[in-house]
């Protein structure tokens, strides 16, 4: 008899599972197995074609790249609709931030503004890497938001700190996050949120267009131009100049990105060469040959809250003014 009831319980629950989910098909959860095991949108080395524009490619169209990845500007998406769709998916978004040496002073503003604007209403896990855990400020976290502090060794050169992030990220994703999070974003700490940063930014591989180069021609991009470096990009190639201060995507894709960048940087070290903009140069090389599936406009990493440009209607995340000489461990 008990068994009878137990069986009924199972049948009842099973048949009453509500799957009322208007789905958005482009979602990617790493645990799913696709028949298509292809890895992003690979493009061959040395392939030359017209430079795409970040502003407008045709007078009556905008907001997609020439490989049909959306570029997110204010007005291109419907925030309510997107939130609604993604809320069904029970997502966890991991966010890594590095605050070594004197950079811990930026944490308070970063975290407090994030609690106001960053993925509000969704589950967010912050992974904070620092060499001074005692300097991490107390910031009240919203429901569903967690802060995890990890101690890392100090370094003498800010360039090393910046580049070392790739390896730490690679390890973090592989060892821990694979089963815990759906998406990950890696953000710079010397910045602050001023406006909404939400699920419109989610995608398989997401890059942010650098705020100083979104209207520059490709030969003016500050890519690494020495052929000896692994990050070398010839003058006639390049789509956009991406910033190293913010990037993200699904765990699998970001793992591949961080792994590749770390490997390339190690090869450069062995050859005693350091790319012009460190891991940002390697990131740009990666994005050239592994096209991002979504691009975020410079609204998502702006120069300074007081700076202005015609195309930027909303500033969402922006560097804060800082005295480089003062905060960096070395020149």
């Amino acid at each position, binding site marked *: *008899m*008990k068994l*009878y*009831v137990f069986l*009924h*319980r199972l*049948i*009842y*629950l099973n*048949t*009453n*599972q*509500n*799957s*009322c*989910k*208007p*789905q*958005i*098909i*482009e979602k990617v959860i790493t645990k799913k197995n*696709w*028949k*298509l095991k*292809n890895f992003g*949108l*690979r*493009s*061959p080395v040395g*392939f030359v*074609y*017209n430079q*795409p524009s970040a502003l407008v*490619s*045709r*007078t*009556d*169209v*905008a*907001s*997609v790249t*020439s*490989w*049909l*990845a*959306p570029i*997110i500007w204010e007005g*291109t*998406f*419907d925030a*309510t*609709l*997107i939130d*609604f*769709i993604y809320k*069904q998916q029970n997502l966890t978004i991991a966010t890594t931030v590095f605050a070594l040496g004197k950079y811990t002073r930026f944490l308070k503003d970063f975290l407090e503004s994030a609690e106001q604007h960053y993925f509000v209403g969704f589950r967010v896990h912050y992974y904070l890497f620092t060499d001074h855990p005692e300097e991490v400020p107390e910031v009240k976290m919203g429901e569903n938001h967690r802060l995890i502090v990890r101690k890392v060794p100090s370094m003498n050169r800010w360039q090393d700190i910046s580049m070392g992030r790739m390896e730490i990220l690679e390890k973090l994703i592989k060892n821990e996050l694979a089963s815990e999070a759906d998406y990950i974003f890696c953000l710079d700490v010397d910045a602050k949120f001023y406006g909404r940063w939400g699920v*419109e930014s989610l995608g398989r591989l997401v890059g942010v267009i650098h705020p100083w180069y979104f209207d520059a021609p490709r030969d003016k991009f500050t890519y690494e131009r020495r052929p000896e470096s692994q990050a070398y990009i010839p003058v006639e190639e390049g789509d956009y100049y991406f910033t190293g201060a913010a990037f993200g995507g699904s765990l699998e894709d970001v793992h591949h990105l961080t792994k590749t960048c770390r490997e390339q940087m190690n090869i450069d070290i062995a050859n005693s060469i350091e790319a012009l903009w460190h891991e940002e140069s390697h990131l740009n090389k990666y994005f050239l040959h592994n*096209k991002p599936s*979504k691009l975020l406009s410079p609204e998502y990493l702006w120069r300074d809250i007081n700076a202005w440009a015609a195309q930027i209607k909303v500033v969402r995340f922006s560097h804060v003014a800082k005295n480089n000489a003062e905060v960096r461990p070395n020149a």
Partner: protein
Amino acid sequence: MVSCLVELQELTVLTKHFCRHNKTPLSPSCPLLPCMHIIIWSTDRLTVGPPMITDTKPKAGIMKVNFFLFFLALTGFSLIGHSVLRVTKDTKPNSEMMKFLQNANTLLLVVAFVSLTGLIFLGYSSTSLRYKEKRFCLKLSYKQPSVVGPDGKVVPVTPWLSPIVWEGTFDPLLIDSIYRQQNITIATTVFALGKYTQFLKDFLESAEQNYFVGFRVHYYLFTDQPEQVPEVKLGEERQLTVLKVPSSNRWQEITLRRMEKLEKLIESRLVNEADYVFSLDVDTKFYGRWGAESLGRLIGVIHPGYYQTAREQFPYERRPESQAFIPYAEGDYYYGGAVIGGLVKDVYEAAKTCREQLDIDAAKSIEAAWQEESHLNKYFLYNKPSKVLSPEYLWQDFKPHTNEVKIIRFSQVIKNYAAVRPNP
């Protein structure tokens, strides 16, 4: 979710109650609780729609309801009878009357059991009436997305950030180079029954010139007259498979049966043979490039006649009795039924759902305004395509050109309906 929790609570209460009762051996109320349980469950499945939907409330067929009520009454009476008669259970049969009552008791138990089985059966067989509609139960109202902006510029991205593919939004060389590295196979299904075989030659020849040139393409051609299939020279790495299917007297039947055939083809063959699949109408022709820019997880094409129409005027199915019903306040675009595409897995889901909804409608003798196109629109409303093709990818020859559509890639040829359709 809320109703799940309520049910869980109810369940736990019932079970606790039952466990308490079970302390007494051979408790007569033993069967009562699970019986109540089954009754509640089957009632729920058969009659009540989910509370959140205000517009779609399909009810069980009349016959089913009758059976259900009959079984319910039977269970009720036999349980009541059993409770009344249980006093006779443990007494010795020392009179005819007693013996009779005891037999009656057993009989009533058996009847109760049989009718419970009937209820369970009805509950289960009503699955198709209800479970799919639960998918469409969350209502959100938002402004209709536009295809052409107020300044005459075309919109390249939907509000849920799927690209809309127009000429000029993509670089064909770049896109081709990206996808060529992926070694993909694109299956393409086309249906040519009855006199529609006359369109095949143009369709296939123009496809060989324009459709996924340089990629591996496998055409699956469904026809009732394989001997009418013309000889068309196919490019390298392209092949054609002819599949014979039975004919029909009604063109509406032919078109809506496509979903079922697509579903079966994917199940039986495409899961192993292809990466992407497109299902295209045959009475059309290619005039321009149709390439890898159209690939994505789930692809819909905007119908050429409605890309500037307000959502209230879309020819959606507007009768609530149909599974394809969409209320006036909802709708993104009007998608054309002539083109469905995407990853094999996702197109399978779409075809399967549409076919199930079509079957439900058929069981109720209702046919949606535009047959499977109406059902497809319903599916796309709640399962948003990951990429939308502009009307360049589905035009109609008899329409004059417009400013926004700068190039026609695929267009329905002018045809004499009376001459080609088996019925008006």
